[in-house]
């Protein structure tokens, strides 16, 4: 079988901020359709910076990010058509209802001419309570916001999904529901890059798991490899090891 083209690809990607901090250091990453890649690492390891680089929020110092084969730096608007983003704290417009938020972001994602029922259908799919559809989101719990956030990604129907610590702060039930939705999206062929601190869920959902330390991808294991290894031990060993650089 011919190898598929990666949806999300980082090619020798580096980012050094103005203050001299090297946030991402020569990162190479390929995430294929129907694959969930979990990026583990401590705070400041470079996980969020990597996601920011994929979204062209910041320019890379060297290297290139590709989304669906499109160079993100050269053609960011075209590249962003093929990727959805869900952040740790899904930020929505508090005075808008769930449907109004969904409608606004769907239109930004290029989905015009959707009817009320289309929005309802997506919100039902992510298990958002029916009564919340027409409620203002300012009173939503974090779990509800997260569900609405993933429904924005679902409605955009992009082949790539970037998740920045999406289960952080969620209760176990909400986190489980969230992973179920991710599994469904994976089955639909989406390429998913998820940064997380949650080692257990990373092992559960990830087809591959990478550990970042000081901007470098220091370890990568497949789901099969992890069946015979203790991810928690590997992670802690890497975190305890000597700093990689002095800068």
């Amino acid at each position: 079988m011919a190898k598929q083209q990666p949806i999300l690809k980082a090619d020798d990607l580096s980012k050094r901020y103005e203050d001299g901090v090297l946030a991402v250091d020569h990162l190479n990453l390929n995430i294929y359709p129907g694959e969930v890649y979990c990026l583990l690492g401590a705070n400041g390891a470079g996980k969020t910076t990597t996601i920011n680089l994929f979204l062209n929020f910041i320019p890379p110092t060297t290297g290139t990010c590709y989304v669906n084969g499109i160079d993100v730096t050269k053609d960011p608007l075209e590249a962003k058509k093929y990727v959805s983003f869900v952040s740790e704290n899904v930020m929505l417009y508090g005075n808008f209802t769930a449907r109004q938020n969904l409608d606004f972001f769907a239109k930004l994602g290029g989905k015009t001419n959707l009817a009320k029922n289309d929005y309802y259908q997506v919100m039902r799919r992510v298990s958002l309570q029916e009564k919340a559809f027409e409620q203002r989101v300012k009173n939503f719990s974090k779990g509800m916001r997260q569900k609405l956030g993933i429904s924005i990604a679902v409605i955009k129907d992009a082949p790539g999904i970037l998740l920045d610590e999406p289960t952080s702060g969620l209760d176990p039930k909400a986190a489980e529901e969230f992973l179920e939705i991710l599994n469904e999206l994976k089955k639909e062929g989406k390429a998913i890059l998820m940064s997380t601190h949650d080692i257990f869920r990373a092992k559960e959902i990830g087809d591959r798991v990478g550990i970042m330390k000081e901007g470098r991808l220091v370890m990568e294991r497949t789901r099969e490899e992890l069946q015979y290894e203790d991810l928690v031990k590997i992670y802690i060993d890497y975190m305890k090891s000597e700093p990689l650089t002095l800068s």
Partner: protein
Amino acid sequence: MLKTIIKKEVLETIFSYRFPLFAIICLLLIPLGMTVNQASYAKRVRDYSEQVRLADEAAAAIKIQDVMAGTVAVKGFRRPAPLSVFTQGFESTLPRYYEFTQDGFKPGESASDDESILSVQGKVDFVFLVQMVISLIALLFASDMVSGEKEAGTLRAMLANSLPRDTLLAGKIGGGYLALWVPFLVAFLLGTVVLMLAALPLFGGDATARVLIIFLATSLFILTYFTIGIAVSTSAAKARTSLVAIFIVWVAFQLIIPKLGDMVARLVYPVRTETAVSLQKSLLVRSLDIETAKELGRQFDLIFGAAPKGAVDDEKSPERKKWDPIRDDIQLRTRERKGQQLAAIDETYIQERRRQTNLAVNLSLVSPSAAFARFVADVCGTGELERAKYIEAVRSHQKALDNELFSKVKRTLMMHEGGGMSMSFSAMPVDASKLPKFSIVPASIAETFKANVRSLLSLLFWLIAPFAYAYVRFIKYDVR
């Protein structure tokens, strides 16, 4: 995409707590301010009509003897400007009338004498509300439009999509401005209806065009302040930071720069008061008259000192034939000197004022608020242009009265060396009913625009520069 952003901004603004507050302020204060000023205008017009009637009656009763006695003082009144309902400008500080005498003109009292004690706190007219209240609200509305979304993280969520940043910025400005402009439009229309119901002449002549210009200029002014707010908001990472910056900008533009400009101009180029100039002119006239009287007395004594009795009254006597051309020559020279010296005083005063005004205007125009106020005051006929037109009309009326009234009597005052004084008169008939009426030719719309090029440029600058700044900042912004 632009439509989506505009719609979202409009909805977000409408749903915010600030919007109903702003709508109430607009819908309540603008029509109310116009109503109060309309009532004040109507009162001033009634006073004006009555005073003009009395002045006309007094002018019609002028007799040549009064002119000979030098007791004639004709008053020329300035008609209140109907559009002063939008801005008072100089309306209450300009003299209500000027008094014209054979020695020149001097200003009468101003309309401010009738004002209530509250006037010291600033008059609540349309321009005041726009300058002080709506400008602040426009800044507040814009203050968190970018920084608030940066802080909340919604900007990241938006920019994660295929959304050009310039479209996002344009949508934010367009949507936010629309949410501000519509309540203003409704309030303005409501105020205009109130004025029409109060029979204010808003139609006829160029009044309609002027009202439209006021509306457009105000819309531009609100957009200017909104864009300044957006520029501040794009520079700040947090809504609170932009709020503080916005207050500083507002205070500088509203309170410090316009007043500082005026203060600096007064310090650099001090100017005498108009009353002091009138006094200087009166003293000059008196001094020249005395000098002339002495010269005439000396010449008279030389010619008639040894003449037989009756030579003065005999037009054919050789002394009279010698005296008449000498007297006429002295009086002509005096008139010429008087004219030249009075014109020089006027010219010096005008130049002093012009220099001071130019400096004050140029400095104050750094503030878009001052530019807006100056322009609208001129459009309403209560600004600097009206003041210039008023004084121009006063000078022209003085000349006309000199020709038609005061020059009809020739006084020959003589001061003799021995200390005695004598006076002779020659008078021509005066038709008091045909005396020229005082009127001010109002500045045309074209003149108003010409005189306000700097103000309009200032407004345009403050519209374009913040937008350009916001654009550059926003395009280069690293989303983190």
